[in-house]
């Protein structure tokens, strides 16, 4: 069932009834996907269940140039304000081929796999899930631990990350209402739904994923009401968390540095016709930026998303706008270590993706999904030039047999304004073994 859910969200059940809700929640994959809580009907288990699952994402990547977005001779300080360090992504986590370790950055850099411009095999992610639930599925505990082995300038390093750890309670069997406490997926936008390599159609995340796909520690609530006569549903998902929806390399979730929560939410509408589905949403986030200690220094995000599924064709897209206030203390506290200054920042951008899921008649090759995604990002740190970057991503995904996904992707980056032109395109392969 996990594999089917990963192939195409379009195949998810249409217009689930409230009766199905309670049954289905007991059999979820545990990906904390509140927006898609019902992933198909299965009989209710007879008793409490403990399930382990996971995957291994083995990759191969070949980045142009030196594997970074920096050009020789660029000695600006910090070195991450004048380029898009996230451009040469190589895997579903958004890790890049390399970063510039020769000059001081200010903590706006992704994780690196440290391969530079040399093609290399990679163990992108080793992911293990533990899920325990009671008999009727009203209570669930879920933990996802991930390991990312890397060889960096400082030597062999394996980052072990508790990606998710939460408990979820569904207090009413007759209502699609769930409360989640712990570290879980964000509630902003839609790209977090594809965080894991098993679920993402392609390999790499979008240019805006850095702002919206981090997991969050706190509490959240999801509610959805069906409108059967209209084949529609309305949903709302809200959260109060330590930090924003930024990825873990940018702002921490492990502690609230200001003592004030970050509030976020998404309101959604679904039209679920038998052969046609349309999902629309608007999201917002407001709260203190969690990379400094001043609670008055805030950040604001808003976004809009849309998904359309018809006849195997999936069209999806998202617009995101980000604003961060200037700090007033000479410190920036990032997961990569302390940095100098929490600069005023603004960014906006979008991505749009088309994927066509083609069912194949062979048992060993069940489905092929070619896809293409276009993204654009405009961002500026105060006092530095505005950067406009674009990205075209295209590739194909094959779902083999029961538990193997093979993906190949070409990622073309273009610095359109502000950032120096640099050869930082990437070719990547990802083979995901699911267990």
């Amino acid at each position, binding site marked *: 069932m996990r594999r089917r859910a990963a192939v195409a969200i379009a195949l998810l059940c249409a217009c689930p009834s409230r009766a199905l809700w309670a049954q289905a929640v007991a059999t979820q994959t545990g990906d904390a996907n509140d927006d898609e809580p019902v992933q198909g009907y299965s009989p209710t288990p007879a008793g409490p269940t403990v399930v382990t699952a996971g995957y291994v994402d083995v990759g191969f990547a070949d980045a142009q140039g030196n594997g970074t977005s920096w050009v020789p001779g660029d000695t600006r*300080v910090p070195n991450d304000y004048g380029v898009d360090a996230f451009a040469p992504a190589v895997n579903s986590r958004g890790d890049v081929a390399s970063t510039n370790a020769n000059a001081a950055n200010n903590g706006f850099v992704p994780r690196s796999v440290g391969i530079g411009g040399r093609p290399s095999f990679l163990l992108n992610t080793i992911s293990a899930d533990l899920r325990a639930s009671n008999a009727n599925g009203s209570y669930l505990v879920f933990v996802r631990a991930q390991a990312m082995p890397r060889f960096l300038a400082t030597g062999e390093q394996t980052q072990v990350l508790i990606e998710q750890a939460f408990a979820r309670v569904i207090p009413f069997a007759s209502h699609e209402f769930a409360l989640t406490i712990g570290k879980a997926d964000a509630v902003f936008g839609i790209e977090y739904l594809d965080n894991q390599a098993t679920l993402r159609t392609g390999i790499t995340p979008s240019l805006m994923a850095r702002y919206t796909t981090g997991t969050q520690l706190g509490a959240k609530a999801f509610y959805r009401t069906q409108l059967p006569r209209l084949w529609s549903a309305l949903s709302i998902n809200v959260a*109060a968390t330590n930090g924003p929806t930024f990825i873990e390399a940018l702002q921490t979730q492990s502690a609230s540095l200001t003592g004030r929560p970050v509030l976020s939410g998404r309101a959604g509408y679904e039209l679920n016709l038998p052969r046609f589905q349309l999902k629309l949403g608007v999201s917002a986030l407001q709260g203190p930026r969690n990379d400094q*200690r001043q*609670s008055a220094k805030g950040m604001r995000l808003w976004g809009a998303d849309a998904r359309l599924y018809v006849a195997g064709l999936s069209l999806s897209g998202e617009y995101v706008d980000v604003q961060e206030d*200037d700090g007033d203390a000479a410190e920036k506290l990032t997961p990569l270590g302390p940095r*100098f200054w929490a600069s005023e920042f603004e960014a906006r951008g979008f991505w749009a993706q088309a994927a066509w899921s083609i069912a194949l008649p062979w048992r060993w090759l069940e489905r092929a999904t070619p896809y293409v995604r276009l993204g654009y990002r405009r961002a500026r740190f*105060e006092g530095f*030039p505005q950067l406009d970057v674009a990205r075209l991503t295209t590739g194909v995904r094959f779902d083999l047999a029961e538990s193997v996904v093979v993906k190949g992707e070409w990622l073309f980056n273009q610095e359109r304004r*502000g950032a120096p032109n640099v050869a930082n395109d990437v070719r990547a392969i990802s083979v995901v073994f699911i267990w």
Partner: protein
Amino acid sequence: MNLRAMSLPLWAATLVAMVGCTSTNDRPTAAWVTLFNIKDQLVAGSAVVEPLGLPMKGRYRLSMENNLSLDVIPAFDDGEPAAYVTTEYWQGFSDVWVQPMYVMAQEMKGVIQPISGALPVFSVGADSAFYSPYWRVFFVVVPPGAPTPDFRTTRAVLDSGYPLVAGPGRLCSLAPSGTDLTGQLRLPTPVPPLHPLLGTNIVGGVGVGAGWVDGISQPVSVVSFGDDRFTFAANGVVNEDPLYVFRHQATALSGPKLGGLPSVGGRGPAAQSGSAPNNRPSFGSYWRLHFVDLPSTAGVVVPQPSTAAQTARIATIMESGLTAAEASPGVQAPHLFFRPVLDAAACAAAINLAFNAAPAQPIPATVCRFLDSEAHIQERLPPAKVVRSEITATCPFVTYQGQPVPLLAPAPGAPL
């Protein structure tokens, strides 16, 4: 409050309120102040440089044309008269970095020559916390026969693929249009102002030009102090030196108050003592302010004021609670006037006595315990009287060792 009776929304609101009240702001407010901020504050009528609280008076003014004017500030360094202007402040910053600036150049017979008329490109604007007036010059070497480039951004420079040759450090402050030294005349050859206390022509000039700033569509004015006016570490952090600023120590009625005495330059760990080729010190442009607390008896010996600047300075000193002891008429000892001293009245009496004797007698050093050098301050004051502040500043010398600091053009034909 009946907790059991609270509704779920009320519980949630209470929780959020409790969480929200636990915020602690225990870090000092950090800020950087540029000439743009200072002009804006002056135009708004502020009497102090916000948020530092340092007085505008004696440092900045608006000209008749509403342009920003930098006052020459008297000082001493190693016992000799000096003077400086202040262009930037930082509060709460541990480090300031050099940033790259790009100067268009051509190579002629193995020598890199800047291209006249081509504006330089500054990589960081003044509204960034990473802005600093401490630039590392990179010459963009245009190939022979290629047209003079009109590069306006770092991207354009780097995309050109032209060789970049590292040059000297250059001290250039981005500034509002029209900014200049107070009293500097813009003739074919600039005539710098006189020293504000000594009234002599020992003040060097500054260069005024323009350049492109990354991300700004119009050229930005620049006040330049030339090359090799600061040093920096391998990681790009600018080396700092201590600047001793005197103030009247706190009393039961008031906190410490800036005294208006000439400041004293010191040497940081990286400064090479006496490294001032052609009277252009390679240290002392990036200072950390050290406040020196003095008792009411400390101050200066002053002549009968003959200029408005002297009159204003004496008034400032006396308003602070320090002493401005006037020497007898006829005492011709300009080298002793306005020199910080521990017991100003006693020193003035000793000076009067010595100069009125026939023949004139030497000034007893045990009476006139001057605080005109870092060594004297450290020797004559307990360490507790010197307070290292969180404020650093760009204060390049325009007078050093009693002589003008010349503004040497970086190279013949250079735009700045």
